[in-house]
């Protein structure tokens, strides 16, 4: 799409776009390029310029079992969070879309969790799940040590999975509800006339019609879980116990800022970037399709 009527004063055009270009160059393109450069070089221990080492950093990353652990945990985290929060939000959206009494209040309250800072969500869940107080700690009355996310890695992972799913559920609810509201009422009414009950209409009319939104949300949720888990992890488990919640971004942070190994952190950044780019391309291709059909 192009404008037929445009302005001629190109100085204004340049002046208007320059600040944005400077910003993205300084804080996006240069750092991204720098990550690529660091990932292919090594800083010699006694100073001097970086030396090109080819793919050695990547080989080091791939040879590190801790890295693969963090990848596997990130994948588990991303998939469970996505399924849990999209599934939960879908059930709520389907029922809220029936517009029975009180539906406006529900619709208003459901998405509030998304506005809560991840660090606050993390602390709230850490308190709820803390072994010596809170709620799940009561399980320890049944059997001492039954519940302790500060010792048990899987319980710690479960804790951040639930926290992230809780936060994302509100977000997913907004999109699913918007999608359901755009399903033409006559379609649903026709199904009702043909004798399809409420639940059957949900299953066979509404859900299939909003599959594009599901696809979109799957991509967004998975990308988000890969990238946006840092705040929650840092205030709850700090990657522990014994690396059980050390997801990919957290490991980049630890390697880059705690161990000061820029090359290793940069190589991991590049891998994560590629992963995110693939996801984003998937998403754009899908957006294109949706524009065609709607």
């Amino acid at each position, binding site marked *: 799409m192009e404008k037929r009527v445009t302005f001629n004063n190109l100085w204004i*055009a340049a002046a208007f776009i320059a600040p944005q270009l400077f910003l993205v160059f300084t804080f*996006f*393109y240069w750092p991204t390029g720098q990550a690529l450069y660091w990932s292919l070089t090594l800083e010699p221990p006694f100073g001097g310029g970086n030396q090109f080492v080819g793919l050695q950093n990547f080989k080091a990353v791939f040879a590190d079992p801790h890295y693969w652990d963090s990848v596997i945990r990130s994948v588990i985290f991303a998939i469970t969070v996505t399924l849990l929060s999209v599934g939960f939000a879908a059930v709520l959206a389907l029922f809220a879309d029936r517009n029975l009494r009180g539906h406006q209040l529900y619709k208003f309250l459901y*998405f509030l969790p998304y506005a*809560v800072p991840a660090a*606050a969500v993390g602390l709230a869940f850490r*308190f709820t799940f803390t072994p010596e*107080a809170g709620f799940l700690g009561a399980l320890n009355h049944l059997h001492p040590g039954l519940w302790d996310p500060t010792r048990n890695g899987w319980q710690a992972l479960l804790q951040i999975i639930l926290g992230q799913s809780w936060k994302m559920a509100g977000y997913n609810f907004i999109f699913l509800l918007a999608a359901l509201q755009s399903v033409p009422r006559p379609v649903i009414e026709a199904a009702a006339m043909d004798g399809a009950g409420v639940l059957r209409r949900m299953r066979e009319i509404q859900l299939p019609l909003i599959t594009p939104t599901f696809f979109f949300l799957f991509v967004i949720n998975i990308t988000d879980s890969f990238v946006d888990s840092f705040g929650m992890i840092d*205030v709850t488990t700090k990657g522990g116990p014994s690396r059980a919640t050390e997801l990919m971004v957290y490991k980049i942070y630890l390697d880059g800022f705690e161990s000061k190994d820029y090359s290793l952190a940069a190589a991991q950044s590049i891998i994560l970037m590629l992963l995110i780019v693939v996801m984003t391309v998937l998403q754009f291709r899908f957006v294109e399709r949706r524009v065609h059909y709607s």
Partner: protein
Amino acid sequence: MVERTPLINLLTHAVLLLGLVILMAPLALVVIAASHDFKTVNLSPMPLIPGGHLWENLRAAWVGNNFGQVMFTSLVVAFGVAAGKIILSAMSAFSIVYFRYRLRMVFFWIIFITLMLPLEVRIVPTYAVAANALSPYQGLIDALASLVPAISIKLPEWNLLNTYQGLILPLVATATGTFLYRQFFLTVPEELTEAARMDGAGALRFFWDVLLPLSKTNMAALGVIMFVWAWNQYLWPILVVTDQNHFSTATMQLSKAVPGLAFGEPPVWNTAMAATLIVMVPPLIVVILAQRWFVRGLISTEK
């Protein structure tokens, strides 16, 4: 729809209510825990009937975490990011849509690609840039100077660590808003531009008097989204603020809210939860007051 389904209606209400309980429970627990005294909050399980110590705990958390200053910092950052986004993205979208020059689409893609990679995946090199914001330009000059030695210049250092600029600028450097404005500008009727030009309005006048008033809705939506997003940032602030005793954002402060298990004492959960409550209230208020804009902004920025 005219349909009698009493059983399923009952189920609907039950499901919706259960969903509400699950989604509100963590928020409610924070408030309840913040209202207990130290002894009650450490009972397991904690009593669900709120205690009478809410104000006391809020005051203790406020003073203990220096929230007066911390909240101010966060407000400045959140407003700064929202304002920066609104202004810069309106300007760049205007340049891309309303002018015709060869590099136009190149610029559009340069800005658009930044949508792909969030700050979190390039933290280490971005941190290096924040330590000296002129280092990219020094790098460019050095690269040129290796070809033409005459132009070798030493730029001064511009350290953004522990500054508002350092907290704000990298968060502004993405395409979210530009794309939103571009889509909107494309829907503005050509006749408006024609009429404005016929009346002798130049580009600046048209931008200021016609386009900006028309995009109020966009601005509100983008502003609300960006305010909440910036307020909730955690990773970038803890990197760019190295002097955390004197300069801190609200979310960062939470990492210090739970004192460790020193001397085997249980953590002071009641004031920690009071701190959590204080930190999550501003974005919640913004979202509650501006729900319409928030939802609209969310749906249109993600498209």
